[in-house]
């Protein structure tokens, strides 16, 4: 897998130093996802070119769902006997990829496991793909992401598209008219699409801001046939005729009662259909599971192997959505993604569709930034997120905390959230003390993925409070 240059003494020194870094991190029980790669690059700036690669490398990329999909695909493969390495605990930029390969390598640089399934940050295509050409690349979708870094989907698309080789097998989402056009130089592609009608389909893109309001090729007007999730669906340009490509893997039906979806494989004679199990239903979950299933098929798993794994222990990881019930009070932690209006809107949409009355705690600001008093978060994404979804008689309280809380309070006023139900808290403890859990069925904690531990601690605080109050009664 694209190991081109000779190994130099500098490479071996970098390998030794980075291995020492891995050992030190293990000894001190630190995760330090990117540290070994950072150490290696300091010594050998072209380290990624020099280190051996596993025989089969799969990258999963795209704005939303790549972590979930990478984990699902890895779990499917491991459950079926594949030995593989992932960057689940590492970073998804160049140094994170290097760190993953370092951990999988002997000091000689030779890889232990022959398969790697790794999440790859979109902008990191530029430094990574020239040095590590994947056998298979899955792109989940493209939306606006962290604007300071990624600008707009058009810019990210350009970076990704330019760096994809002609030989990599591409798995693309036909329902995303942005990312499905990726890498015109590559003719080794397969597409997946949800053609089934879903309960929450809309005739037009969902949300206050759409990433695909105009044709990405000519700027002309788009007409939508339907949307499953935000702009993911089917559309055509009234000027140049651009439309979604035909898919080879098609989700033809979804059974919400049986928790199964059916995939028709149109690249196989007779177009066989296969049923797969899903856990918690959301359209985002369905897309992630579908994408992982298609990638697993492309890697050689049989439909039966995949179905058996999905019937068993393989499912969406709990880190993104977890719930507990304490003395009859439900607490749900639901992940969003900092500076990402789409991911935040999807989280809000999930919350509003849950039954019962609710209190919502918003911990969407980046905890890392709170630790750096001279670093500020760009607040533009707040105006791209659908705070309007919180305008719901079932939402009885909103508590907001973090660096951008003041901006979010104003945004909620503009969205139509009753200011009298909004509390701005100074710190996590104050936020959790402000929650009126007795007045609602469920307390939702919507958190930025960088705040996983903080959100877990917040849920613990609330649980302790509920238990304490219960014992006093």
């Amino acid at each position, binding site marked *: 897998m694209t190991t081109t240059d000779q190994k130099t003494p500098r490479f071996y020194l970098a390998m030794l130093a980075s291995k020492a870094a891995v050992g030190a991190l293990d000894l001190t029980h630190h995760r330090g996802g990117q540290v070994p790669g950072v150490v290696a690059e300091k010594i050998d700036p072209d380290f990624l070119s020099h280190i051996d690669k596993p025989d089969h490398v799969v990258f999963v990329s795209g704005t939303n769902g790549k972590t979930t999909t990478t984990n699902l695909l890895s779990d499917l493969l491991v459950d079926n006997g594949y030995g593989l390495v992932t960057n689940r605990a590492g970073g998804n930029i160049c140094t994170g990829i290097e760190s993953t390969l370092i951990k999988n390598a002997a000091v000689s640089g030779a890889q232990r496991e022959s398969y790697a399934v790794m999440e790859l940050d979109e902008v990191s295509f530029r430094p990574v793909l020239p040095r590590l050409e994947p056998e298979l690349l899955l792109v989940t979708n493209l939306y606006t992401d962290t604007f300071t870094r990624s600008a707009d989907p058009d810019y990210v698309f350009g970076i990704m598209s330019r760096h994809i080789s002609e030989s990599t097998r591409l798995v693309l989402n036909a329902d995303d008219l942005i990312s499905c056009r990726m890498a015109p130089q590559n003719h080794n592609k397969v597409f997946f699409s949800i053609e089934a009608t879903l309960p929450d389909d809309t005739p037009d893109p969902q949300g206050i801001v759409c990433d695909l309001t105009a044709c990405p090729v000519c700027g002309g007007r788009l007409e939508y046939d339907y949307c499953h999730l935000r702009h993911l669906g089917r559309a055509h340009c009234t000027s140049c005729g651009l439309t979604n490509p035909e898919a080879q893997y098609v989700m033809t039906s979804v059974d919400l009662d049986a928790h199964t979806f059916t995939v028709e494989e149109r690249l196989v004679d007779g177009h066989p259909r296969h049923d797969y199990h899903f856990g918690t239903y959301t359209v985002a979950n369905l897309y992630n599971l579908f994408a992982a299933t298609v990638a697993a098929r492309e890697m050689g798993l049989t439909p039966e192997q995949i179905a058996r794994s999905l019937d068993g222990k393989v499912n969406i990881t709990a880190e993104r959505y977890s719930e507990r019930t304490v003395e009859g009070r439900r607490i749900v932690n639901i992940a969003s993604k900092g500076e990402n209006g789409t991911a935040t809107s999807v989280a809000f949409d999930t919350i509003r569709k849950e039954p019962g009355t609710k209190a919502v705690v918003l911990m969407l600001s980046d905890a890392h930034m709170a630790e750096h008093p001279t670093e500020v978060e760009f607040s533009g994404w707040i105006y791209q997120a659908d705070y309007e979804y919180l305008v719901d008689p079932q939402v009885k309280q909103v508590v907001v905390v973090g660096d951008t809380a003041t901006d979010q309070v104003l945004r909620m006023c*503009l969205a139509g959230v009753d200011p009298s139900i909004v509390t701005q808290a100074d710190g996590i403890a104050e936020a959790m003390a402000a929650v009126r859990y007795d007045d609602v069925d469920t307390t939702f904690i919507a958190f930025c993925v960088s705040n996983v531990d903080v959100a877990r601690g917040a849920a613990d605080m609330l649980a302790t409070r509920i238990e304490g109050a219960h014992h006093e009664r």
Partner: protein
Amino acid sequence: MSDSANTVVEVLYPEFGNQAGDNGNEMYLRACLPDATFVHTSYGDKPYFMEKTPSLVLMCGMTEMQQDIVARELELYRDRLFELVDAGVPMLFTGSAPEVLGTSITNPDGTSVDGLGLFDFVTHRNMPKRYLDVVVGTFVPAPGDKPIEVVGFKIQFTLMEGHNESSFFLADEVGFGLNERSKLEGFRKNNLIATWLIGPLLPSNPDLVRWILDTMGERDAKLAFEDEARRAHDERAKTFRMPGMHMDI
């Protein structure tokens, strides 16, 4: 009482200008002017301003491809647009939108796109270099007027070369202006403001909105959620003045 029933805000190319929270500008204006008419002019449509005189023209930031086709499109309506600028019609160009008002936009590969030429500057696109800054500046509507404090973010691939010494929007206390050597932000001509400040500029700057509303003839229009907007503004003004304050990539 405000007579905003006769007020028309023309939003140029809103399907493009929804980047980075720039849509918050229209959102806030709608909240301040609940009875006003908002006309959305999409790419390919003849602008409302060609036949009538809007109370305000608003255009927000867009991608490079969209910017290129908008520059070509607006060339068709250039004379009327300039006539309205000269007549003092309020206009607000934010994010990357001001770049179409310069003489040209150059690409990293050396190619260029003509601008409308309202202002004397050239835009240089320097992708993938990203220029980030926070800004606190003052806007003086007319000589002797009380300065208006404006806060905002700058996030762009571009730097400009040109002259705004006598036609700037803000004198920056914090942050860079047309380029990293400049402390003069944006352009101003009569009641047109062109600024690279990006994102929800208006919700964070109630005093600037007050001036825009007054200039539109909406002296009786109330600032929407004024207390919350002032808190957001004051917090930004305070934090942006901290030495070393920055955004990270």
